[in-house]
């Protein structure tokens, strides 16, 4: 081989972020920083009611206001009236009915954001208020109004495995709940739509998946796909919140109508209404085991609240149900999952995607079972741990790496942090910090562990792929590689990983990434822990094709013309589940375990998480620093769900749509996180690397609440755990 392979800056190294310099300077252009001369500002009128008929909409006063260029309603949608990732059931603008408080009803374009906001107040909407369905069990009642024509069930699936009536020596049973969590990316939903001379539109947008947006936009705008061009703008975090369309169609409609560039940028309050949330769950489980601690039978019923529209609910309940037995071998199971429609805000993708809710329930059950059997909780888990070759309740065998035991053993081997006396401590180190009015008289420490797993990539037969284009040229400064994909850097570090892959494959230091857009084939979404595997795989294949051609031409030194190649990466095919929930639904899995050490002030119900430790199966760490960053950040979101994060809903109304009222962990809430990276390359994946974004978020909520149970002896069946729960109020 004539190409000199240089590993410097390649895979396996903690290479610095390629977008680090503009980001620390404040020069990185996020979607909310976009601007054009002569641009207008868009704003959205949203329903104040969770369920109502729209009798009439009067836009005349708003349209006549100075500085207002357009006021649009459902009547102005140029094409298909609805959008949606899976089922297109969500109106671009509500027509006859609004199904959740916050649903978009009208949009305005004006000279200035304040003028746009004031114009919204001039729009008269006459509603006939209907009684909303705001509870997921109420949605299943025969007397409940049907929120959609097909009824209130989005999807039910049943997994029947072995003999679901199998007898066991010992049974434990429990009901568990998780609240509605918000992704709360710091960058608000934003985009800039620019009308084009060909009658089309260019949209500069912060999204997770350019092509899924395109597929939804073009029909609604009644334009051929080639006239709707999406260009990635800077993305200020995502975590699932940007998987669904927010302001994309609206901004394009306003730009096409006014023939001016239109920017839309949500404020924090609107952001809570402008994207989907993590599904609240209600889960019943019954675990049966033999006296010696082998799982025999698992029964589960899972119910999740999908809110007003379908979004990704079918896949979320698919995940929750297929993972309901946890990372354990069990011969018999009946697992039934249902996602329902309600008049609550729509729920969809958030980091962990159904696996989080299931883990919270099954790990609480495993602790209960350990107590009933008088076994050490880790020993019980080790006894039943999945391993390579194990068969899941769906009948799918685990073909790849499954280091469940090693995850647990790594945590077992870590010493616990030493106990500190409450008396001589900086008061900031008491639970609740400066808010603790006591002196630590009733502190109690608790330790909890949890292990879980999550699928990588899309499941149940989804035809998933990513395309990459690579071009190598030689100029006076030497060889240079250019790469283009439609894959979205949301902050996870994908652009750096792609750069490392190119360096490793081609031995070329100078790597330039072109801005992603829809001119190239889809890269799929930056979600489901899939981009390193999918786009990384596509880039690797394109590099290998380029390298072959360079070799054929006699090497880089004799290269006369640039060499380029495009390649598409597919993962192995998966299949749908049959009526008994049997099949081969998932590509592969990543496993993780967490140990939480907490201190509870038993008088005040305040909590300090002293330490988190996460052991995670990563296949191979392509950028160890970045892997740790994902584990730590995912842990923080898990801690948030365990202790503080919940969208407070009263009769379908969000009561805490701000960072004053919806709390996410601060630097005072986060303990040190110890990352134990388990590297065992996964066969069939590029470099053996698994996606790393989600496992810590899956296991940390369960581990933190387990530690709280250990400290307080209370059942704590619901996350987030509130101070009242801890003191028994």
């Amino acid at each position: 081989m004539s190409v000199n392979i240089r590993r410097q800056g390649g895979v396996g190294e903690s290479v610095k972020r390629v977008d680090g310099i503009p980001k620390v300077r404040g020069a990185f252009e996020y979607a909310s920083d976009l601007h054009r001369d002569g641009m207008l500002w868009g704003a959205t009128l949203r329903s104040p009611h969770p369920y109502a008929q729209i009798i009439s909409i009067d836009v005349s006063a708003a349209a006549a206001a100075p500085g207002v260029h357009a006021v649009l309603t459902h009547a102005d949608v140029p094409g298909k009236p609805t959008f949606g990732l899976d089922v297109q059931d969500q109106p671009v603008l509500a027509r006859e009915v609004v199904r959740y408080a916050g649903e978009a009803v009208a949009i305005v374009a004006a000279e200035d954001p304040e003028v746009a906001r004031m114009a919204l107040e001039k729009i008269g909407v006459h509603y006939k208020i209907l009684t909303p369905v705001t509870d997921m069990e109420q949605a299943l009642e025969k007397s409940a109004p049907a929120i959609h024509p097909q009824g209130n069930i989005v999807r039910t699936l049943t997994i029947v495995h072995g003999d679901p009536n199998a007898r066991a020596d010992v049974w434990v049973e429990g009901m568990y709940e998780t609240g509605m969590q918000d992704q709360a990316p710091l960058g608000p939903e934003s985009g800039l739509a620019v009308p084009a001379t060909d009658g089309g539109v260019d949209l500069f947008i912060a999204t997770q998946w350019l092509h899924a947006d395109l597929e939804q936009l073009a029909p609604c705008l009644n334009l051929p796909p080639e006239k709707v061009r999406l260009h990635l703008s800077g993305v200020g975090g995502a975590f699932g919140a940007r998987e669904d369309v927010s302001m994309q169609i609206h901004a394009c409609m306003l730009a096409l109508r006014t023939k001016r560039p239109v920017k839309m940028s949500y404020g924090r309050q609107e952001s809570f209404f402008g994207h989907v949330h993590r599904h609240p769950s209600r889960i019943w489980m019954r675990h049966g085991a033999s006296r010696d601690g082998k799982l025999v039978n698992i029964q589960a019923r899972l119910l999740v609240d999908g809110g007003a529209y379908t979004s990704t609910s079918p896949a979320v309940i698919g995940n929750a149900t297929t993972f309901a037995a946890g990372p354990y071998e069990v011969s018999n199971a009946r697992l039934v999952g249902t996602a329902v429609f309600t008049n609550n805000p729509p729920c969809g993708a958030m980091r962990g995607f159904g696996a989080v809710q299931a883990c919270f329930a099954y790990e609480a059950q495993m602790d209960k079972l350990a107590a009933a059997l008088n076994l050490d909780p880790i020993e019980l888990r080790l006894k039943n741990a999945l391993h390579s070759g194990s068969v899941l309740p769906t009948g799918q065998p685990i073909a790849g790496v499954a280091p469940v035991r090693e995850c647990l053993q790594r945590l077992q081997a870590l010493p616990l942090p030493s106990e500190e006396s409450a008396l001589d401590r900086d008061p900031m180190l008491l639970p609740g910090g400066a808010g603790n009015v006591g002196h630590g008289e009733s502190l109690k420490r608790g330790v909890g562990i949890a292990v879980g797993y999550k699928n990588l990539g899309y499941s149940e037969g989804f035809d998933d792929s990513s395309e990459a284009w690579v071009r190598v040229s030689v100029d006076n400064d030497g060889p240079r590689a250019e790469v283009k994909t439609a894959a979205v850097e949301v902050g996870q570090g994908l652009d750096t990983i792609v750069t490392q892959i190119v360096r490793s494959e081609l031995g070329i230091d100078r790597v330039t990434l072109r801005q992603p857009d829809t001119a190239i084939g889809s890269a799929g979404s930056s979600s489901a822990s899939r981009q390193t595997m999918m786009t990384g795989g596509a880039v690797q294949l394109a590099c290998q094709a380029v390298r072959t051609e360079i070799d054929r031409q006699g090497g880089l030194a004799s290269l006369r013309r640039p060499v380029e190649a495009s390649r598409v990466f597919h993962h192995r095919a998966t299949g749908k589940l049959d009526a008994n929930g049997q099949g081969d639904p998932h590509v592969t899995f990543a496993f993780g375990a967490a140990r939480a050490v907490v201190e509870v002030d038993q008088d005040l119900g305040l909590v300090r998480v002293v330490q988190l430790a996460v052991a995670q199966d990563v296949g191979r760490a392509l950028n160890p620093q970045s892997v740790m960053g994902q584990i730590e950040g995912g842990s923080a979101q898990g801690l948030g769900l365990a202790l503080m994060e919940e969208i407070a809903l009263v009769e379908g109304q969000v009561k805490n749509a701000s960072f004053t009222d919806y709390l996410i962990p601060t630097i005072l809430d986060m303990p040190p996180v110890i990352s134990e990276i388990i590297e065992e390359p996964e066969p069939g994946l590029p470099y053996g690397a698994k996606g790393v974004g989600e496992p810590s978020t899956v296991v940390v909520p369960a581990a933190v609440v387990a530690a709280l149970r250990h400290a307080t002896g209370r059942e704590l069946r619901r996350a987030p755990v509130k101070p009242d729960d801890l003191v028994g109020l």
Partner: protein
Amino acid sequence: MVVRVKVNDGWREAEVWPGASLLTFLRDRLGLYGSKNACEQGECGSCSVWLDGNLVCSCLVLAAQAHEREVRTVEGLMADERLHPIQEAFIDAGAVQCGFCTPGFVVAVADLLQKDPTPSPATVREALSGNLCRCTGYQKILDAVSLAASRIGAGK
């Protein structure tokens, strides 16, 4: 109304409506987009700037309040096109992911280290408790602060 502010050593002026925040003035009137808009109510620190040397959330200050005063933003941190040691430390420690909170953190850390060049871990946590990050879990931000403090202390 016309507001005139000394921003990063140069006087700038622009027309704003009386309710406009200093953040809006900086971003939408002066084109200084480094200060970020993430919560509009002083909870997240993404818009941190100095007003007459005091660290403030520019979303909570009216543009009019900054009239004839001095504002320093993240754009004013670099000297001679070289990154500030805090900016370098954020990159080296892996403290940047999506980066939306980063300018605000960099400003808040610079403010802290000006006042206390060798802060204890508890002091760092308290000083940065008004800055939210959703990506990192803060550990690498703490690492960056230690790294920056040691490099600045060593005169590097």
